[in-house]
């Protein structure tokens, strides 16, 4: 069964501006994610991708602009409230509960849910995706390896059975095999449950293949947006994000680097 992509936007950002103290991290970002689609934000280091996601989930209060989720204005709301509306965020840097067992971490993922049976079923489901978590179910999450924690962080978000998942670099620290698997799972969840996904990912190749629509962020501004099919064909994208450079360009860059260096 494949859920169709519909036209109405679940998430809408309008001219959002966020800052850390005097430093503006994003400057007037507008984007929208439609129900059932996978959208992605590409951008180099420090472009402000994480900041956008944090602003959406209420961890940062924007200076300006508004954020709408499922038709409700959630600008600067309490993060817990936003999650209760059905929005889940897989943060950069895992952020597991280090002194709780793996199982309790998963239970916390389902905090907003009332259906015990559904939760039990979903725990089995994520154990199916990542068998290592079942093995370590009673271990403190803080003792897992980096990649295992990443699996836990993703699983924990799935436990909430949300309408929209914000994924911040899900493949961070995962083995090539698992990276692929993770994306397969993400796509599967999108297709089967109709969960909408907003994805931030350094592995642009994966991201552009798995997503439907993409935004390119530079210095806190959106500079390009299009369907991923189109983006994949653009030369800039190919060069800067997919690493398909001609040898000449590459050597040139190498030389520039080298020149600075005695």
């Amino acid at each position: 069964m494949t859920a169709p992509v519909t036209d109405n936007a679940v998430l809408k950002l309008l001219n959002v501006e966020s800052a850390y103290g005097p430093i503006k991290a994003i400057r007037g970002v507008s984007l929208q994610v439609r129900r059932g689609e996978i959208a992605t934000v590409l951008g180099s280091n420090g472009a402000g991708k994480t900041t956008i996601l944090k602003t959406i989930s209420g961890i940062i209060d924007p200076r300006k602009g508004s954020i709408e989720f499922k038709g409700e204005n959630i600008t600067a709301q309490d993060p817990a409230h936003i999650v209760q509306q059905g929005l889940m965020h897989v943060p950069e840097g895992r952020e597991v509960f280090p002194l709780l067992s793996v199982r309790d971490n998963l239970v916390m993922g389902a905090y907003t849910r009332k259906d015990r049976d559904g939760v039990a079923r979903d725990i089995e489901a994520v154990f199916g995706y990542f068998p290592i978590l079942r093995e370590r179910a009673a271990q403190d999450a803080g003792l897992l390896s980096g990649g295992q924690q990443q699996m836990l962080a993703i699983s924990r978000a799935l436990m909430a059975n949300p309408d929209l998942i914000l994924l911040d670099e899900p493949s961070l620290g995962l083995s090539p095999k698992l990276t692929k698997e993770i994306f397969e799972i993400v796509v599967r969840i999108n297709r089967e449950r109709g969960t909408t996904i907003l994805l931030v990912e350094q592995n642009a190749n994966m991201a552009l293949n798995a997503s439907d629509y993409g935004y390119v962020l530079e210095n806190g501004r959106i500079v390009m947006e299009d369907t991923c099919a189109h983006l994949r064909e653009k030369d800039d994208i190919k060069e800067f994000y997919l690493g398909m450079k001609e040898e000449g360009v590459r050597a040139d860059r190498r030389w520039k680097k080298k020149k600075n260096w005695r």
Partner: protein
Amino acid sequence: MSQPQNPNADVLLSAQNLSVRFGGVLAVNNVSFDVKRGEVFTLIGPNGAGKTTVFNLISRIYTPTSGTIDFAAPGGQSGMLRLTDKAPHEIAKLGIARTFQNIELFEHATVLQNLLIGRHTHRRTGLWSEIFFTGKTRAAEIEAREKVEQVIELLDLQHHRESMVAGLPYGVRKVVELARALCTEPQLLLLDEPSSGLNVEETDDMAFWITDIKDELGITVLMVEHDMGLVSKVSDRVLAMSMGAELATGTPAEVQRDPGVIEAYLGSVDDVSSLRRENHPKSHTGASA
């Protein structure tokens, strides 16, 4: 203390039959390897294979349940030092520096201060000289800054010199951590997933840097990495681990061809187009318009 003889003058670090157990988990299981002077040696393996644990054993955060680690004595002396007999803070002094998988910087300090802390092993001043800030201390401070500036220039960090680490994006922090490790002027550099969180272009830069570190600075590199592109580009030899045990060793190409490695680690050949939605949604105008 027994002074194990260096069997091979080329070997900088030698781990023999390392094992470590945490409760029921055998995180590292009888692993042996040698890192030769001047090479880039890479550990790969599925998540939870025990790669970081090997690093932690070398930097003495953990003590092995069994096995030994030896390190060629600094200053060109013959013979090997038994690392497993050393205290954790002595490791840096011997010339081993490392970065961390989850980034462990001094958050409430500037980049410059972080790098200066990296110079700690080269400290020459005493407490009293520092309290009175004598000429000697001043000279030492200036010298430390000169060294730090060289690293800043190498890694292009000028822009961030005075920024607080807490406010830096993930990618920059990775570089700062590398810079801090370089400031100790190590013989052996341990890099735990240097490219995670970097995009393709930045990963490219990282590859250049690692090559430069090896070639120009003559520093031996032991690294853990998941990006096979980077691994093939810079490593001389690769050790693949799985479930704590050794899986395969060899050149990057050899290891990548190993069926065991493919099975446990690499997965099927890269074809990610299968992820695409079969029927593309029709293009829509963005909200930003």
